[in-house]
């Protein structure tokens, strides 16, 4: 098993005794050969399209004509002043906000409950995970029906005497984004619950027991023992939900197509609308490049400032 001698952080006992020689003997040629398929696919499906988008974004182009109308940074300038794009960006930010402030804490809370011993635990674990398993398009159609003017939500409100609360949830510009946020939270919290549950199960029982022996309250145990132990998972969950929020598309596209009047658009729905509907492929490419750039910057900053301690030696990371 010399192939895995590149030690991962935390495997210190093994690393100490391991002779350094086998690691160096991996010829560069072999490494490159094994990397080649992955690199080729990555280049073909990630790098090349991105490079193409960057080129297109410098043109005014309807997707059919030859690329002749070079406009330089005009598309980006237009983007800066485009109220519809600002709206979409703001909506993405609100999805990130709700994901971090509501979805993750809720998932952690439910995971804590599900980690206990009680009858029917397996059933509950499945129930909470089901929304994540449903295809996004199916979930979107489901919620579209529930939130329709004559849908189940208004029906339920009617039934309990709250007629005055009934609304056209997806038709009012002031309400639609709220509705989308609820559905996004519902759709993805199961995934994070599962993630946290796995992390919670790996918290050493003896640590918890020691805490209890020392007279720590349940809150203190959670604050000083459990939470630090699942810290790496929480930080990864935060990362996944930020990146996911920036790329949000299917759910919104099927449920509202970004409407009405752009009130629920995200950057990606706006990009698709600009390209496939308006045939402004140059402008849509500029949107794509900005989304890619934003995701990249956010990912780098997160790596640098939040995940840094997980990337470093984690043997004493549980502070």
């Amino acid at each position, binding site marked *: 098993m010399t192939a895995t001698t590149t030690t991962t952080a935390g495997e210190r006992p093994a690393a100490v005794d391991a002779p350094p020689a086998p690691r160096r003997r991996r010829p560069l040629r*072999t490494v490159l*050969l*094994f990397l*080649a*398929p992955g690199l*080729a*696919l990555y280049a*073909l499906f990630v790098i090349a399209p991105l490079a193409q988008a960057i080129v297109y974004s410098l043109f005014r182009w*309807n*997707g*059919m*004509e*030859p690329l002749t109308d070079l406009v330089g940074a005009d598309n980006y300038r237009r983007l800066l002043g485009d109220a519809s794009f600002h709206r979409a960006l703001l909506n993405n930010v609100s999805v990130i906000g709700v994901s971090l402030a509501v979805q993750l804490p809720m998932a952690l809370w439910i995971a804590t409950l599900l980690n206990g011993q009680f009858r029917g635990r397996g059933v509950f674990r499945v129930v909470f995970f089901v929304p994540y398993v449903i295809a996004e398009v199916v979930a979107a159609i489901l919620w*579209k*029906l529930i939130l*329709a*003017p*004559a*849908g189940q939500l208004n029906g339920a409100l009617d039934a309990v005497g709250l007629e005055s609360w009934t609304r*056209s*949830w*997806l*038709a*009012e*510009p002031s309400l*639609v984004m709220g509705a989308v946020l609820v559905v996004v939270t519902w759709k993805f919290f199961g995934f994070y619950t599962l993630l946290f549950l796995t992390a919670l199960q790996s918290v050493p029982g003896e640590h918890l027991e020691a805490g209890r022996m020392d007279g720590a309250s349940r809150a203190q145990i959670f604050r000083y023992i459990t939470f630090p132990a699942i810290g790496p998972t929480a930080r990864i969950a935060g990362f996944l939900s930020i990146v996911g929020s920036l790329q949000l598309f299917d759910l919104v596209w099927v449920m*509202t*197509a970004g*409407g*009405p*009047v*752009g009130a629920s658009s995200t950057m990606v729905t706006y990009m698709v*609308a600009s390209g*496939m*509907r*308006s*045939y*402004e492929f140059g402008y849509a490419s500029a949107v794509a490049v900005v989304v890619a750039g934003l995701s990249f910057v956010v990912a780098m900053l997160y790596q640098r400032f939040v995940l840094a301690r997980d990337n470093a030696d984690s043997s004493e990371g549980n502070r």
Partner: protein
Amino acid sequence: MRIKGAAAAAALALTLAACSSGAGETAGADEVVIEWWHIQTQEPTRSVWADAAAAFEEANPGVRVEITVANDPDFKTALDARLQANDPPDLFQSWGGGVLQAQVDAGMVKDLSSDVSGWIDNLAPAAVDAMKIDDKQYAVPFDAGLVGFWYNTELFAEVGVTEAPETWDDYVDVVAKLKAAGITPAAVGAGDKWPAMFWWAELALAAGGTDPLDEAGATGAFDAEPFVEAGERIVELVDMGAFQEGFLGMNYADAAGAASMVANGQAAMELQGSWGPGTQASVATNGEGLGDKLSWFPFPTLGGDGGAKDVAFGGVNAFAVGKDAPAETVDLLEHLTSVEVQSKMGAGGQLLPVADGAEDSVENPHQRAILDTFRTLSGVQIYLDQAYAPAVATAINDNVQAIFAKTSTPQQAAEAIAEVARR
């Protein structure tokens, strides 16, 4: 060996990606293949086309027709990819207008003027005319329709209306009566945007005729008076509560969409194309829709001078021919628009034939009335989202939705469209 394997895998990945665009073009040495893309995904028209292709193959040995059927958005996406690859299909769906113009500008479609001159005169002139750009024939129509009101005669009768309104004042009066009786006057799938655009277009046409629409197409003057007036009439209706609850979020053809409300008697009318009854039937809870209770009237006039009445608002479906298409493609086109094939298509109840002599195949009396009206027209103002360049079309649809939502005033919306059109 392992090294070779890795290299082979990489090579395979590249080859797979590279050859996906070239597949399906292999043919026998002397066999002519016509690649035909259409969007009639539903029966019976889908089979009518398939049978027509089979008959054509039989009559022309050595010619093979390869049909690709896709729904509207998938068709557009796939066509874009083929156009970008400089390889248009031989025969494909077109709606004329801004997109056809762009395809012409890009040199993707054939000028058919001389090829079709012998037989195209048998097709309805307004439809043929709509497929001309700079007096050249770039596509050949096979279906045409007009937009108008599909209404529930029973609900109209309930409020004492037995004659269809002819002027806008009469129309508003009918809406008020329906509203007062607790009936939803009109259903509109404004979530899809284009059904809302129909109202704006009809009103602009009624307010100023086709001149402002042509003018706007050329100069971008969508802030002209008729467009603003159209928006004001819409606001008038919205304020009256003329539309169903939640119309901004409702799609046209969804299971619980705008068409279903008319089909199930929950709304009294809708402003829609000739396909209205078919769509209603497909989403009706009884599986058929309103049957005899459904009737049709054209958009009312706005009083005053109004627009020229030999021009109406509607749409044309046509086929364009790709730049590298074999010569036999035009023969296939002639076959598809022959009285024989057009009659079979008309009998299907979905599309309205444009060939002279095929009109008797249309059984529904209202669709027949629309067709007869269409055949007398000298011109047709095609759907605005097809008439203009796609960016302008999107701006129209978006801003008209904003008028319905009252997030833009009619003036602001008109100016926003004009700004895009002048860009």
